[in-house]
């Protein structure tokens, strides 16, 4: 399973980065960049929580 950011709607609020700074940064254009997109069983819940908390609903998991 992988997590991805939709850059067309991301506003760079950084809720994702504050929660999981090892996965998400805000890049040069002020939008989220996923720097570690592999989601395994151990961190599935953490990533799911970040997806729920994204204020612009710009994150999703794919590859089920």
């Amino acid at each position, binding site marked *: 399973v992988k997590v991805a950011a939709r850059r067309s709607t991301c*506003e*760079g*609020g*950084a809720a994702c*980065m*504050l*929660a*999981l*700074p*090892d*996965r998400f*940064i*805000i*890049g*040069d254009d*002020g939008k989220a960049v996923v*720097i*570690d997109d592999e989601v395994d069983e151990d*961190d599935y819940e*953490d990533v799911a929580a970040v997806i729920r908390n994204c*204020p612009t609903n710009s994150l999703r998991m794919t590859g089920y």
Partner: protein
Amino acid sequence: VTVAYPGAPGLDLLSPAATEDPYASLAPVRAASPVSYSEVHRAWLLTGHQVTAWGYTARQLSSDRIRPLLARGEIGPDSARIMEMMRDWMVLSDPPAHTRLRRIAAAAFKSRRIAQLGEHITARVDSLLDEFIATGQRDLIEHVTHPLPGSVIAELLGAPPADSDRFREWSDELALVAFGTGGEHRDDRHVRALHGLEEMFGYFRELIGAARSRPGDNMISVLLDPQVPGVAPLDDDEILSMCALLLFAGHETTINSIANGVLALLTHPAELARLTADLSLVPAAVEEILRWDGPIKLVVRWITDEAEVDGNVLRPGQRAYLVNAAANRDPGIFDRAGEFDITRSPNPHLAFGRGMHACIGAQLARLEMRVALERIVTRLPGLRLAQPVQWHSSLASRALTALPVEYDGTRP
């Protein structure tokens, strides 16, 4: 040409009244306009929640306060070395330099690494409290909150625990040099602080050397070999600089977050009672503490490109203060904004910032706050203030001078 700005006339954020209660001082400024120009501070004040959040993400606002100073040659030879180091701090950098540093730092802030620190933090807080109780001390800052973050950062960097007190000294010295805290004895202390920092550089170089010859499970080892594809690794000076940044950014803010949190609970006894009765409320209480009386009152940005916000034109070369202390009490965003409610939800406070510079240590800070608050309220039953408190006069930091407490069974 005379330009009329919507003013925040007269508000001096360093006045005794604003030092004591910045929230009361800022409320009328925010109510008059979420964006205003302060003649006193010669800076735009962003006080509404929405505009402050905008300020954190706006590309026209730069965090780089060092390069312009270095370029203008306004820094004496004594401080030049420190400034050269701060130039490499990601908090003070713009892209693309920032992005590279941040990617590498991300490797060092692995969530699992941070979570594993929980046990270390609990043990450390308990041993500080053991000594606090056994020796009948009163000041929670001096004896509990001040020693804590240095020892956590020492652990993260892989330094021997015995050296953790040196970390706290260096951190205080760094604050003095970087932001000119320290008041009247500043010049003398400034020179001593610079000597202390030279010692810190030497110490970090040894840690880097040790990690290079024997990599371990610590941040310096990760920084030496971050394995981030497509990103040039850090050189030793950059690693040194990042270590100093971790120490500086994680020290005073953490001390004050915990101390301000204890104070908020002691001045709201009903909330303290609620928390003590149900420790599952601690995480939400931490968020409310960060909103209510967070460690950073405001953050400074430079305007590099013209920006329009709320009908005001911010011009290149001007400064903007992103005033968390006002935004986090904005009644347009927070219901009952003037009430301290440890179960508040949602709580979109700005204590960790937003955008690319949002706090990379937020997880660690939350962990330290949760553990410290839980252990303090559990181990010091009947906790109460022993004397009225005072605040340091500071533009950016919300810092108590001391936190004198009593509790049931305090040794005389």
